[in-house]
């Protein structure tokens, strides 16, 4: 009997608490700091056209043709960039001559290799040389190849080792 009474009292207490909760109110207020802007930056790199000191359509063994192109940071963040040459075609392929001594090769200047920092809006000229060795065999006569460059870019901030990112 006692248990029932206690149970009833407990139920009444809980019901009261629920009713109280429904109407419970304290004075409150809110303070707001508005218009916080978290604009994210952009990594946007571009590569300009290749320029050569001499015409490139008539190479001969022993030629070393200097070339340049410009890398521009068109984004809003400082970047790391790295240039990679992509040479293809018979002129740049060793197997073109089975007994030859080497195809044409591309060498990017040491100062323009590896990861290079570049500020937003800034540009850097990339210098390189396209060479056809003196020892190139006759089988390279009249053959051609194509050359393009890839520029990889990463944000500079919080990125001390771009190679590993």
């Amino acid at each position, binding site marked *: 009997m006692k248990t029932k009474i206690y149970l009833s009292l407990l139920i009444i207490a809980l019901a009261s608490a629920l009713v109280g909760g429904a109407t419970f109110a304290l004075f409150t207020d809110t303070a707001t*700091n508005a218009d*916080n802007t978290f604009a994210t930056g952009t990594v946007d790199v571009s590569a300009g056209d290749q320029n050569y000191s001499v015409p490139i359509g008539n190479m001969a063994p022993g030629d070393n043709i200097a070339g340049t192109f410009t890398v521009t940071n068109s984004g809003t963040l400082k970047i790391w960039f790295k240039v990679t040459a992509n040479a293809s075609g018979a002129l740049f392929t060793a197997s073109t001559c089975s007994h030859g001594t080497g195809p044409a090769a591309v060498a990017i200047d040491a100062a323009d290799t590896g990861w290079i920092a570049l500020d937003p809006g800034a540009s850097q000229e990339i210098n390189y040389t396209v060479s056809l060795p003196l020892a190139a065999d006759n089988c390279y006569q009249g053959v051609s190849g194509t050359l393009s460059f890839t520029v990889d870019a990463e944000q500079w901030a919080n990125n001390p080792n771009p190679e590993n990112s």
Partner: protein
Amino acid sequence: MLRRKIYLVLVLVVLAAFAAGGATYALFTDAASNQPNTFTAGTVDIGADRDLGDPIPGPMFYTTRDEGGFAGHPGWPDHATGFWCPGMSAIRQLIVYNAGTLNVHLKGVSAALSGIDDPATAREWAENMKVKIYVSNGGEVLYDGTMAALLAGEVPFDHAVFIGAQPGGMPPPNVHLSFEVMMDLAAGNNLQGLTPVVSFSVHAQQAG
């Protein structure tokens, strides 16, 4: 027998006399009341100003001077963050003061976002923005989570922060809160070039 009747008549006469006197009976009287007592409910009224010595009101976090409200104040020092990128973090302070007449507890924080139209992008951005709020100068950490959680609604502080009332025109008591925001290093390329704008709200209720 006759005597009895006489006594009875006398008693009735006396009673009648008393009754008649009662109708006109009066004592000197007076009444007094004290002045009306006015009961006024107190107020819970908190405000917030950015800190770090910024001389004009505005947001805590701003990418450029103009966004920070410094356009008309050349030469004034600012704390523009510059553009955000993965791994970047910034700490700014908010002074929350009690301008009401009641003691208050700061009990939670929420945020509202604008500036990103695509819901999926907004969600991804908010998940990659980590927010830590603590009482400045090494005080208790009140919140440590994502911006996304704050955008979903009020998040209770881990510890309520008490600010006493100081009525009477005195400078309002305050507490300095630090907001540390970090963009996760894993944030993706699709979060480039966004302009998210956030309102931070600190919620208070009467204390005690």
